């Protein structure tokens, strides 16, 4: 039986996803805000032929608990705007896709739309965006335009506020997509005879009217090379899965095992169908934190050492895989059978666990016919098997 290759994305964040990652011998904790650090990580991801990297972000300092700030001094704190990191790194790469995180709760869809369109120009067709909702009251206080209550943990995934914020996120993505289409591909005509630079009939007002914002358009930036850059979102529950089903090209979910993976894929597919998008390609990738070494015992010992330094056993919203790249390949192949089309791997430490992915996991998957042996496309959509979409405003 011919295997369908799977897709791999590396999730970049600080020194890695383990809170003690920055204390590892190969970590570069004083360079986390330097361009060279990110250039090197992207080069490593591209060396491994990965589809893309995600770059985490938020409009507040990192904290141990995702919903409340803390005063810890033993964890990485402070970071850079992820879209700008992606743009700084993109010209140093040729094939890798970029999916920086952007908060869509307090920001302007008009600004983000042109920023991602521009990232697509800068990378000649390798841009996407991972949209993220910000429910924290301290984040809202940085903007002072809306008050949000403390996050109610019991209803953190389903409460009316969460539903409202995710509905707003769906409207936000709709505005991004309309603005990306607001210029037809051949709108620029440079007609010296009439003195006209553009054909104004090929520029379109988007006239979006929503609850939180209305946007007239058109964008100030012409349609990006991919037409529609890739939109991704992470979801742990029904409300965010609905956002993926309605709005995304790529969803990240957090299964605990193969059966759970099947359940999550079904949940997203149902939302996709409910949104009338059953015929469209929507990827569902499984998120995993990975602690990888050549021997399983080495990986376990390393995790134990990291946990000891962190002062607490590491837990995550995603399954934490500890073992060898070969064992991880077994797991990925198994979960792929449950319907996942790819994986977003979160290296516990950087660069160690990223290098384990690119230099050990990838060759193992290649041996099994489960991963590309060379980049087969020039754009992120191309790598993900997505066609360049027709413009919604173009006359048939």
């Amino acid at each position, binding site marked *: 039986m011919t295997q369908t290759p799977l897709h791999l994305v590396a999730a970049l964040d600080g020194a890695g996803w383990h809170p003690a990652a*920055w204390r590892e011998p190969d970590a570069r904790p004083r360079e986390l805000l330097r361009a060279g650090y990110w250039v090197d990580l992207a080069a490593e991801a591209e060396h491994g032929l990965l589809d893309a990297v995600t770059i985490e972000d938020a409009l507040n300092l990192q904290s141990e608990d995702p919903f409340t700030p803390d005063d810890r001094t033993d964890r990485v704190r402070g970071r850079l705007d992820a879209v700008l990191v992606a743009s700084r790194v993109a010209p140093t790469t040729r094939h890798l896709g970029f999916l920086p995180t952007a908060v869509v709760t307090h920001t302007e869809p008009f600004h983000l739309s042109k920023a991602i369109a521009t990232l697509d120009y800068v990378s000649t067709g390798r841009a996407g965006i991972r949209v993220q909702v910000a429910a924290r009251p301290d984040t809202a206080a940085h903007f*002072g335009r809306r008050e949000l209550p403390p996050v109610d943990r019991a209803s953190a995934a389903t409460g009316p506020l969460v539903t409202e914020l995710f509905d707003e996120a769906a409207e936000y993505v709709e505005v991004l997509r309309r603005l990306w289409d607001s210029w037809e591909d051949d709108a620029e005509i440079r007609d010296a005879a009439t003195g006209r630079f553009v054909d104004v009939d090929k520029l379109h007002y988007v006239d979006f009217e929503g609850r939180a914002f209305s946007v007239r358009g058109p964008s100030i*930036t012409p349609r990006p090379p991919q037409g529609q850059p890739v939109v991704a979102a992470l979801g742990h529950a029904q409300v965010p899965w609905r956002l993926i089903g309605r709005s995304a090209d790529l969803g990240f979910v957090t299964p605990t095992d193969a059966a759970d993976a099947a359940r999550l894929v079904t949940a997203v597919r149902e939302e996709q169908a409910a949104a009338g998008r059953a015929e469209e390609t929507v990827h569902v990738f499984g998120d995993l934190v990975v602690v990888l070494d050549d021997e399983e015992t080495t990986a376990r010992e390393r995790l134990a050492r990291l946990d000891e*330094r962190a002062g607490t056993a590491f837990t995550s919203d995603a399954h934490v895989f500890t073992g060898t790249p070969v064992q991880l390949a077994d797991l990925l192949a198994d979960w792929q059978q449950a319907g996942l089309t790819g994986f977003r791997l979160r290296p516990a430490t950087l660069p160690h666990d990223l290098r384990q992915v690119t230099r050990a996991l990838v060759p193992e998957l290649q041996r099994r016919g489960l991963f590309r042996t060379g980049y087969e496309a020039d754009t992120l959509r191309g790598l993900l098997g997505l066609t360049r979409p027709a413009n919604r405003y173009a006359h048939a």
Partner: protein
Amino acid sequence: MTKQIHLAAHFPGVNNTTVWSDPASGSHVEFESFREFAQIAERGKLDFLFLAEGLRLREQNDRIYDLDVVGRPDTFTVLAALAAVTERIGLTGTINSTFNEPYEVARQFASLDHLSDGRAAWNVVTSWDAFTGENFRRGGFLAQADRYDRAKSFLQTALELFDSWRGDEVLADADSGTFLTDPHPGAFSHRDRFFDISGQFDVPRSPQGRPVVFQAGDSDEGRDFAAASADVIFSRHSTLEAGQAFYADVKGRLPRFGRTHDELLIMPAATFVLGDTEAEARDLAHEVRMAQVSPATAIAFLEQLWNRDLSDHDPDGPLPSVDPLVGEHTIAKGRASVRMHRDPVATAHEWRAKAEAEGLTTRELIVEVTGRQSFIGTPATVAATIDEHVQSDASDGFVLAPHITPGGLGPFVDQVVPLLQERGVFRTDYAGTTLREHLGLPLRRTDGESAVAS
């Protein structure tokens, strides 16, 4: 003492200075154009490159204005990418204070400053129009009278955010496990009638402490704003006499704000046309002006003053005999220049008198009144003129706006810059790594005091 000249390059923008119909004119959106432009500017050791911004496509007669270049990329995103393909040149972007929030803009500029190792600069502009506001959450919310007050508050708030990290908080000592020396870094709180925000800023102090701040206002209020808080002021006064008057006025305001003469640089925008002889340069300059003012562009300019639909007017005939419509401007939207016509009827009478006296058609008149190039001549005369302007305190340098994208700057860099270097008034290589060092501006300390750059 001989002053050192500061030079910058303005990426050809969305206005009729840019000649898109020239066969040499490239894309205004593709990154390759920006890369080439930036690398030419860096080859010439220029202080910085500059990107303008517009947040809504301009309209005239309720249609998108299509006679100039239309469309541009996002300022921050292009500047971050340019940091990857350049090493020293400053990266200046125009960012509107009306349709943004301080926390977000501050973290973008702090990020850009980190990612470029200290080369970021912010041209703070302000607007109030509801037309642009239609693209944003806030909408057209600001009264015209409040725009400088809000811009001041916005800049002040952003400066507080930049200064919220002292610069010594990140220790990252793996052995002791101490990442931060301060458990609550970046704390800020700002309350006034425009912003009520508090919390912790999440980008540690950047190499320059804060980006270099540019301002472009020309009104009395705008000049005060710049004198109070800008590091560099753009102006439009590129003639010697007007430049000297502006220079003396703005520098004279500095003591009132507790600042010294050297803490604010004045850099007018300037265009140039070079030729092997003076006559050749003059001919070329006329050709360029005719390309900048096509027959359709001449009518469009006419409508901007007349505030009427003049689409049936003959560009090769005399000016309209009717007077401009006075009152709310309805013809042209999304451009700042229409506000410069403060008394349109009087201006129309002046134009008519000039056209009749000199026998000019409408298009020829528009070519005359909408500005010839700042510097026209051989490389030697242009170098001498620029040096004279700077040494006689008409400016501290110029922001050059070539009319061809992306290669239009090349002749200046290759022919004029070496002459300025020979005169000893322009650097032969970058002495420092940050834009603040290129400009000779004081370094910023965290306490808001300035220290002299070493």
